[in-house]
């Protein structure tokens, strides 16, 4: 066993100081450029932050893979849904004519949209895959209005960082950052495979986020809030799934 030399001690000390300082700077920069997810605390915070930060850097503008019409799954698999609430049944009886999507928070003009009003915006259709974190998947054509169009209509304030979206189902809400909210494929979806969006798939309105797995694609959307911080929502983790133990960012 050789004795630790003074030179070695100094180099190790310098290297350790540099690493700590480097980590500090990295954390500051990550915070500044929005690379820190709301669930960065806790024992899995390291992995979650690395995944979110690296995927955000790599995929800010990349498009989810689109497929040909012949690749559409027939029939598409509908995951189970909770028994509908009385409110949902009432709206369904009226053919969802009274369904409203309200948008507020850090916007110039808070607004409320009926499905018909959403349909008046130029519609966008995409054939993308929906994959569940469990492992199964299907491909469908999704028709709707890009979320970015609605955010443009209500005029989002520049300090906005997240869009929080709520379902008519109790305690069902998630959030995405502005990179995903303004992404051209993030779609307020009202149609599927050339038809209305079936209730089993989240009709009359579902938010499709095709670059994230199933649970971020919340069904029965009634409300959006634009915010600069997720701290005021629930436990501050950014969604019902993170509160249930699932990662906030689900790009993998």
């Amino acid at each position, binding site marked *: 066993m050789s004795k630790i030399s003074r030179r070695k001690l100094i180099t190790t000390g310098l290297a350790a100081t540099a690493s700590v300082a480097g980590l500090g700077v990295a954390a500051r920069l990550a915070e500044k450029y929005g690379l820190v997810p709301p669930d960065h605390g806790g024992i*899995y915070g390291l992995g*979650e932050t690395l995944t979110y930060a690296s995927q955000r850097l790599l995929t800010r503008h*990349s498009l989810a893979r689109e497929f040909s019409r012949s690749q559409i*799954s027939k029939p598409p698999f509908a995951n189970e849904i909770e028994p509908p609430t009385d409110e949902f049944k009432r709206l369904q009886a009226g053919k969802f004519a009274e369904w409203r999507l309200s948008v507020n928070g850090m916007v110039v003009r808070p607004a409320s949209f009926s499905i018909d009003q959403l349909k008046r915006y130029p519609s966008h259709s995409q054939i993308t*895959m929906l994959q569940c*974190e469990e492992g*199964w998947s299907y491909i469908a054509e999704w028709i709707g209005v890009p979320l970015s169009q609605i955010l443009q209509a209500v005029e989002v304030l520049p300090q906005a960082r997240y869009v929080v979206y709520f379902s008519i189902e109790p305690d069902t809400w998630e959030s995405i950052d502005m990179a995903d909210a303004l992404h051209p494929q993030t779609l307020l979806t009202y149609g599927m495979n050339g038809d209305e969006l079936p209730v089993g798939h989240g009709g009359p309105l579902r938010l499709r986020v095709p670059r994230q797995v199933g649970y971020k694609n919340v069904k029965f959307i009634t409300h959006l809030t634009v915010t600069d911080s997720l701290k005021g929502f629930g436990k501050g983790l950014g969604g019902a799934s993170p509160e249930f*133990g699932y*990662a906030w960012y689900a790009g*993998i």
Partner: protein
Amino acid sequence: MGDSACIPSAASAVPTTAATSRHSALVRITHWITTLCFLALLVSGAEIVISHPRFYWGETGNDLTPTLFKLHIPASRHLVPTGYKFVLPDANGWSRYLHFQAAWVVVFTGLLYAIYGFLTGHFRKNLLPGRADLSWRALSRSIAGHLRFERPSEAEAWSYNVLQRLSYLFVIFVLFPFVIWTGLAMSPAFVSAFPATVNVLGGQQSARTLHFFVSLALVLFLLVHVGMVWFAGFWSRMRAMITGRAATPSTDTTMERI
């Protein structure tokens, strides 16, 4: 590879002084970090599979489509038709968190090990088989020796035999890269930036099925590896991988491998 002729054969790699350690500190540390990560990946990966123990080929697959094969185990979701009357608890939340965290740690550890291995000549000196060891005669002798469960020679306390070298190289340069690749090919965000990573595998479900098979190959390696360590002398091999110390071979022993 031009200098492979001067790579010492297993026997001549035996050091004569006790001061040298069997495994360098970096090899020992990365070995045990990788072990911990692999166990975490295995447990969490099994939990994730339990939520949908069906496998497919191509882009898509779900309860309505035919499977490539299915595991006859109960599931943690009650929509999956398993034939069992009970449903296991949902563990995907922490499993996915742990899986990706362990994946990050093992990727960084692997990178550190790979850089070290190339820079110090660890791969060339300790893992690349000598040319003489790759002849049919030498290979079949080594295979026959393994099949007869011959005790490893004293030299093997200090150097890997040819089958060990080949399997370690295969795990390091084929199985680990492929398991990372097939894992990333399942990520909808990653493949939006790098679609070729999933397209060349034949689709997202193919990537998932391949990820499962590579994991099985790694588990098989783990079992054989631990079995061989046990057979070679569990405590001496464990001591070598933990402290770096191995039994010093006596100088008068003939090291040639007959």
